[in-house]
């Protein structure tokens, strides 16, 4: 009797697997066109690309299966398409930047004529002897995928595809164990929370299991407020079921019956996909009452957050779910004792929960074999800014920043020099070149002064201004401060005022001391992580880039030629070509004028320093120059009566 009920979940899953196989086999023989349709793909035009494929297929009367998938992480190459045309004898092939014209051509020539259009190939999806494979590129072969394994491979709106890829097996193995055993496995794996602080997930689950009280709750934190990171959203959009499975495993482990996904209303695609995934899972008996015929009951609801950075903090998140302003409160009691609705609540990040199925399926030893001793597993970063192959990258913990930025992501474009990398968003820090050999893990990054944080990584080249980046983040945190603690509310405001002053060339020498002291006070005098870490971007840049601050304050010079109050554009008359008018045409404020020699000049009074003339000036002339301090620009008077003069 006991044996049968234990086997039940596996048997029931096998039935769903059978259905999945059947559904998928229906289009198995057709050529397949796979298009990445997550937020980044859509932004790059993936929907137009899809219609172009559809149109071309019907126009040339070719049968193929269009397979919508999520984001594979290679956002620099979107719209990214993979075509598998078995009859052609070629392996599946990736094409990048496939806009409608290219789509039509691929249908006509590849699907219709068997010519894979070699000049447009990005790489083959498998090793073969015809076409170089993408696995030869570092951006593909250095990644290790635990959480994002199926992102960009399966249709996120089709449960069966996740099942066919081995989905919900982790849940079944968890259900075959007593809850204590599940917690022990998570503990042994060394899984640390991916929401920023790196708290061991096993300990959190243990505490929730042991907490007295009924109606325990699992919340998936998908608030993701870092203004330059989008991993969590992409995971929800590309493989929602893995997150649901992770939540169900947690529910089994701690004895919860109710779960919530806290995701921003501003991410409509993620909301739609996860909502749909929940209802599909319920239909197939993977969520809801008596999951897979067992005694486990677990239901998940989506709560749409209204966009406040501080609501990523767990106690503020609960406040906002209860209908209040999202203001953090003192801990203890921790949410695991007294959380949503005063019930014991586990709050975990999307990536933490999405790691659980793989750990249950492949075992804690396997998980520990990836990453480092203190930080097992993988890290997911959105690497953006001045970097060639930007996008989402999942790497084993422990590789260095240099490997990630230069080997995997292709380094800095346009042969510029690396200046800094900002890690961890508004709570993180800015690291200079000499830290590039720092291994990426929770503890090493913290030691260096940055932090894992949300996983936002912004690479900056020599043209970036560190002082301005610090100002940018303080501007953000002071805006997002909930206002509860005086230091955070008013202190960040003062820091912002000082930084603004410095970027405008009105800084004083003593400002740096003041920034340092204010920063330390805010850090020590704030209740929650927002205030405690808000000064980080400023404090690290003061430590590592003091010379940049000095240049602004002492010389009125912005070394990155960035701060608009400290720079000026001018036109080098020796290089300017007489007949060319592009800079005049593109100037949004009519600041560029024609001199009596028909060469051009810039009216500094009117110039808003948008740089458009510099972009527009043909490279053969390269006549527009930028200098700092601003007074270095030669003055060219506007001839009286020239157009645009007032």
């Amino acid at each position, binding site marked *: 009797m006991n044996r049968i009920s234990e086997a039940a979940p596996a048997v029931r899953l096998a039935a769903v697997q059978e259905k999945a196989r059947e559904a998928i086999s229906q289009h198995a023989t057709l050529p397949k066109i796979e298009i990445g349709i997550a*937020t*980044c793909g*859509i*932004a*790059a035009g993936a929907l137009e690309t899809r219609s172009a494929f559809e149109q071309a297929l019907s126009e040339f009367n070719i049968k193929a299966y269009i397979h919508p998938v999520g984001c594979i992480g290679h*956002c*620099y190459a*979107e719209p990214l398409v993979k075509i598998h045309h078995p009859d052609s004898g070629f392996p599946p092939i990736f094409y990048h930047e496939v806009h409608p014209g290219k789509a039509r051509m691929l249908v006509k020539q590849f699907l219709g004529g068997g010519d894979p259009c070699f000049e447009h190939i990005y790489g083959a999806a498998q090793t073969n002897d015809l076409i170089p494979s993408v696995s030869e590129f570092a951006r593909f072969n250095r990644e290790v995928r635990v959480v994002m394994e199926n992102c960009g491979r399966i249709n996120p709106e089709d449960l069966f595809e996740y099942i066919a890829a081995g989905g919900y097996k982790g849940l079944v193995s968890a259900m075959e164990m007593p809850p204590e055993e599940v917690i022990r496995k998570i503990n042994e794996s060394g899984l640390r929370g991916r929401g920023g602080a790196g708290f061991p997930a096993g300990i959190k689950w243990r505490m929730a299991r042991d907490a007295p009280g009924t109606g325990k709750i699992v919340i998936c934190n998908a608030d993701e*407020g*870092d*203004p*330059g*990171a*989008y991993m969590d*959203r*992409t995971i929800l959009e590309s493989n929602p079921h893995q997150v649901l499975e992770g939540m169900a495993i947690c529910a089994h482990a701690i004895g919860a019956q109710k779960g919530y996904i806290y995701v*921003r*209303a*501003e*991410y409509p695609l993620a909301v739609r996909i996860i909502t749909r995934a929940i209802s599909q899972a319920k239909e197939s008996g993977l969520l809801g009452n008596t999951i897979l015929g067992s005694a486990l009951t677990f239901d998940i609801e989506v709560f*749409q957050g*209204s*966009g*406040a950075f501080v609501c990523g903090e767990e106690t503020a998140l609960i406040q*906002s*779910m*209860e*209908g*209040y*302003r*999202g203001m953090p409160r003192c801990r203890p009691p921790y949410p695991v004792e007294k959380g949503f609705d005063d019930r014991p609540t586990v709050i975990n990040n999307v990536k933490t929960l999405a790691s659980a199925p793989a750990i249950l399926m492949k075992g804690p030893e396997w998980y520990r074999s990836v990453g480092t001793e203190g930080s097992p597993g993988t890290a997911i970063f*959105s690497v*953006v*800014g*001045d970097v060639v192959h*930007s*996008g989402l990258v999942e790497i084993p913990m422990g590789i260095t920043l240099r490997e990630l930025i230069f080997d995997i992501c292709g380094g800095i474009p346009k042969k510029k020099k690396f200046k800094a990398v*900002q890690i961890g*968003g508004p709570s993180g820090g800015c690291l200079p070149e000499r830290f590039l050999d720092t291994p990426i893990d929770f503890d090493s990054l913290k030691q260096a002064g940055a932090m894992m944080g949300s996983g*936002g990584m*912004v690479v*900056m080249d020599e043209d*970036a201004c560190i002082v301005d*980046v610090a100002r*940018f*983040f303080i501007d*953000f945190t002071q805006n997002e401060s*909930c206002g509860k603690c005086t230091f955070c509310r008013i202190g960040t405001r003062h820091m912002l005022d000082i930084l603004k002053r410095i970027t405008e060339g009105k800084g004083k020498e003593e400002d740096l001391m003041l920034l340092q002291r204010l920063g330390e006070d805010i850090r020590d005098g704030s209740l929650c992580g927002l205030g405690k870490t808000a000064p980080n971007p400023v404090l690290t840049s003061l430590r590592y880039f003091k010379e940049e601050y000095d240049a602004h304050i002492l010389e009125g010079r912005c070394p990155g030629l960035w701060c608009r109050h400290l720079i000026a554009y001018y036109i080098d008359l020796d290089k300017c070509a007489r007949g060319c008018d592009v800079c005049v045409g*593109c100037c*949004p*404020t009519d600041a560029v004028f024609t001199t009596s020699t028909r060469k051009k000049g810039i009216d500094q009074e009117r110039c*808003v*320093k*948008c*740089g*458009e003339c510099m*972009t*527009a000036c043909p490279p053969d002339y390269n006549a527009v120059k930028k200098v700092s301090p601003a007074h270095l620009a030669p003055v060219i008077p506007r001839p009286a009566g020239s157009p645009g003069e007032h």
Partner: protein
Amino acid sequence: MVYGLTPEEKEKLERFKTKLSTFEKNRKNLIPILQSAQQEIAYLPGQALELAAGHLDIPISEVYGVATFYNQFRFIPPGKYPIKICLGTACHIKSSDIILENFERKLGIKEGQTTEDRQFSVERVACVGCCALAPVALVGDALYGKMSPSKVEGIFTRIQVEKEMSLRVHSENESNQ
């Protein structure tokens, strides 16, 4: 500037009123209620806040306090073409503030405002999720990547052309009838 409710908006407010009755009278529903109001009316006029407060039996100041806390909620009507500029980190280091300024200058309004004819509004948002295309601007649902000041001009031209085309189609249809 005070915006009165247009007849259309009054109708939408009525629709929200009906929807409101489907929400249980529970404080936990405050944010979902406000979201539903904004979805219906496109912003939160005072009347909607009053209705929410009445339904949950809490002071309107409390409702206003919560609504203003969150970035999602807006209190003036968006334009027919709502323009959103991403000022996330990746976009910032690609000079998105210059793009924002160009829109502001062109329309003669500041971010957070709507033009008097209610055609355009300008708003800043944080990371749209496609940093590889930075800097990014949205007009309605259409996304424009790798923006530059001259593309701002292009967007307005495009809107103008589309408007005239639809007018022409409209008048042709009418004359055909």
